[in-house]
């Protein structure tokens, strides 16, 4: 039996970065807001206590704070000819869980996408012609411009207190910053982090090669900071336990450090944890959402009526909830029709590891985002015509940690056990470094998300099926970037350099990145997007969907900065326009 609860103005699914921002902005606008979160409450002092948090086995290896695959996972295959099988154990990516979501365990690398990224298709066609685009691509413009998003990037960065150095202030290039970035209205909230020893070698090497190194924007802060909601953060101590961990030190921007302390003081906000939303409920004609249905930890079912439904789960799970709720038309790769699940993308990579003599990199002293980057090969910052691929990558030198279970580099050919292995591990642990390219992945007809026909979650609902492989365009990009990384590492003085590029099919086992994008993309055309430019569903106008699921393809940076900017952009449209006149913000 379903218990019907009293109506709220707004119901939010998922209390991570985007859900908490939506919640505080709308609660402060006077609305009654409930956030429904399937994981537990998480708090710095208790869950990420300094006496328990830095535990590599527990958090990084056994993955304690992540979603348990037993609760929900996806099935995976490379293409339509294969049978998808469940990802039984996380590998390639690690979805977050609980209050704070992936905002707890991220590294804090907080980028703005390049201005041209938002109009990538137009730009590529203008510069190279339609024929230059890869086969079966579905690359499309975002429907929103960098200039429109700039105030909201700024808002998210000042929420987080991001440490960095501007490269472009209102059109004026700034020494020491990224000359390729879009114009910023003002400097970063806090100064850039200092450089590690490896970064100083990288800076010199890349400068000598004619590139333009700059400090990576970081949500592990260089100094104390009080944010726009009055929440206080402490300087990062470079403990080396960021990615896969909650920060015990209040130094990493997260919903816990930046939003929740203020949000919880809003009397018209309520969080309900350990409740799994099973679907968005709709009117019989399917055109209006009436709220959500969820199941609590005891298996009891509730209906939460609300005027406005905001899907703020991890992007992949937003897409699944749309599919399970029957909002929008599922994408069919055979006909190319439908939109929900369309344009799933990921991140490409290429890297080089350098083994050095007589160097003490001390890589254990690190944060998730302390690094130096060069953007010369990102986006369309270089001429692609000679190289036969589109897209680009940020090339970065920055070890986020040296936790020894998962990090104990040895040169190729070293035995994997025994005394020779021990000797090699000892010789190379402190004297190895690397640089890596984080690259774009374009959208393609055959890379998509839908519901699996065979495998179910414990509630009996179909798992989502991910059909994905790296295409030739991304393989060329990866090889190009790996070669550049190798050149940089040689210039840094490595004794031995090992390069890595994408080879073989996409594999669910080795960790790659938790930058899953697309599936509920934004855009200007309802035939090729699920959401309009304000993240509002084209089909059900009182449903908005945040997260990287809105990216029409993925670019050469981490997604969170853009996810945060889009959230502030969408909530501004809700507050300034939607609440005054509910309905479609863009005519269809």
């Amino acid at each position, binding site marked *: 039996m379903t218990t019907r*609860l009293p109506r709220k103005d707004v119901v939010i699914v998922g209390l991570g970065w985007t859900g908490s921002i939506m919640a505080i902005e709308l609660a402060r606008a006077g609305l009654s807001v409930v956030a429904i979160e399937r994981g*537990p409450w998480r*708090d710095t*002092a*208790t869950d990420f*206590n*300094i006496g328990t948090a*830095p*535990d590599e*086995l*527990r958090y990084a*290896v*056994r*993955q304690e704070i992540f979603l348990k695959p*037993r609760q929900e996972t996806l099935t995976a295959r*490379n293409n339509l000819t*294969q*049978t998808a*099988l469940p*990802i*039984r*154990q996380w590998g390639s990516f690690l979805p977050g869980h609980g209050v704070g979501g992936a905002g707890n365990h991220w590294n804090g690398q907080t980028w703005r996408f390049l201005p041209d990224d938002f109009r990538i298709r137009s730009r590529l066609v203008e510069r190279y012609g339609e024929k230059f685009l890869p086969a079966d691509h579905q690359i499309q413009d975002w429907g929103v411009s960098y200039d429109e998003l700039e105030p909201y990037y700024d808002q998210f960065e000042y929420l987080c207190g991001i440490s960095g150095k501007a490269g472009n202030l209102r059109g004026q290039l700034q020494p020491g910053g990224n000359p390729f970035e879009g114009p910023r209205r003002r400097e970063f909230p806090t100064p850039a982090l200092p450089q590690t*020893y490896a970064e100083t070698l990288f800076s010199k090497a890349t400068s000598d090669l004619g590139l333009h190194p700059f400090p990576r924007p970081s949500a592990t802060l260089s100094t104390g900071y009080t944010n726009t909601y009055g929440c206080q953060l402490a300087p990062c*101590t*470079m403990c080396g*336990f960021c990615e896969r961990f909650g920060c*015990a*030190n209040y130094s990493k921007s997260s919903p816990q450090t930046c939003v*929740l302390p203020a949000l*919880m*003081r809003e*009397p018209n*906000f*309520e969080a*309900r*944890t*350990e409740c799994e939303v099973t679907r968005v409920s709709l009117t019989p004609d399917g055109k209006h959402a009436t709220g959500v249905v969820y199941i609590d*930890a005891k298996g*009891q079912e509730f209906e939460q009526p609300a005027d406005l439904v905001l899907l703020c789960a991890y992007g992949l799970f937003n897409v699944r909830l749309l599919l399970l709720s029957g909002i929008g038309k599922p994408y069919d790769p055979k006909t190319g029709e439908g939109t929900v699940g369309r344009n799933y993308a990921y991140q490409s990579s290429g890297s080089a590891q350098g083994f050095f003599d007589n160097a*003490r990199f*001390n890589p*254990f*002293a690190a944060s998730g985002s302390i690094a130096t980057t060069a953007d010369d090969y990102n986006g369309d910052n270089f001429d692609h015509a000679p190289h036969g691929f589109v897209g680009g990558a940020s090339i970065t030198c920055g070890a986020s940690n040296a936790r020894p*279970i998962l990090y*104990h580099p040895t040169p190729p050919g070293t035995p*994997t*056990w*025994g*005394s020779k292995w*021990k*000797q090699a*591990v*000892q010789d190379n*642990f*402190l004297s190895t470094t690397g640089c890596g390219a984080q690259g774009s992945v374009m959208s393609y007809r055959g890379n998509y998300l839908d519901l699996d026909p065979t495998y*179910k979650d414990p509630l009996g609902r179909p798992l989502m099926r991910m059909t994905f492989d790296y295409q030739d365009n991304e393989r060329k990009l990866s090889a190009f970037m790996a070669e550049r990384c190798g050149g940089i590492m040689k210039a840094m003085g490595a004794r031995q350099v090992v390069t890595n590029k994408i080879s073989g*099919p*996409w594999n*669910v*086992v080795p960790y790659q990145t938790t930058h899953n994008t697309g599936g509920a993309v934004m855009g200007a055309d309802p035939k090729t997007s699920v959401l309009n430019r304000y993240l509002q569903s084209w089909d059900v106008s009182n449903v908005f969907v945040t997260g990287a699921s809105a990216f029409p393809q993925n670019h050469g940076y981490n997604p969170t900065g853009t996810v945060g900017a889009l959230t502030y952009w969408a909530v501004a449209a809700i507050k300034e326009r939607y609440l005054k006149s509910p309905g479609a913000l863009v005519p269809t």
Partner: protein
Amino acid sequence: MTGTTRRGLLSATAIIAFAEAASAKTYTGTMPWSPNYADPAQIVTPGGWKFFTDVEAQAVDAILARLIPTDQLGLGAKDTGGTVFIDRQLAGPYGGHDWLYMQGPFPANPLPQQGLQSPVTPRDQYRQGLKALDAYCSANLAGRNFAALGPDEQDLVLTGLQKGEIKLDGRDARGFFNRLLTNAQEGFFADPIHGGNQGMAGWKLVGFPGVRYDYRDVIANPNKPYTLPPVSLQGRAEWESGR
């Protein structure tokens, strides 16, 4: 499970404004927080076996002594609690794949890039694998089990397993070998609270200072040796002896 108690405590102390019908945790008006509370890991103490039999533990001791040997560089996995570590891991959620998606069907021929697709848990893998290893040694090496072999013979057997040249129960044993090696390294490099890496031997080998949690001075002094000894989540033995 510590989390259950803790969540109960939280919901009792949080200000609950609404939804008496719901058994979910509801938070409003304040940060739910209890002073002096953390969510500690179980601290492993040696003594007895939670999963292994004595015979199995002897075999694991012998395997660890070869995978990460005690040598001139310092103590190895067997001599720093590695077997206790693996035993406790197997007895816990890891050993039964408790957190993983284990619903069928399990296909006969999954693609390698689709990862784990077997219903066999680590506990099953050790129980069956160790038995089959001793059976193999007994049948092929003069009636001796693995632990009774000399070091060079043991290395030959382990190499054979790793390369897939030695089958156990007629089946490829590379998966079993890989799990042994992974678990050996986990124990050797994990915080000592989990049972292995006693004396922080693994951390001393490589120069990892552990969980000091503040390395700003390292960044400020580039390319210099770090000279302070490592610290675990339980501090250092020297702190205890000084009290």
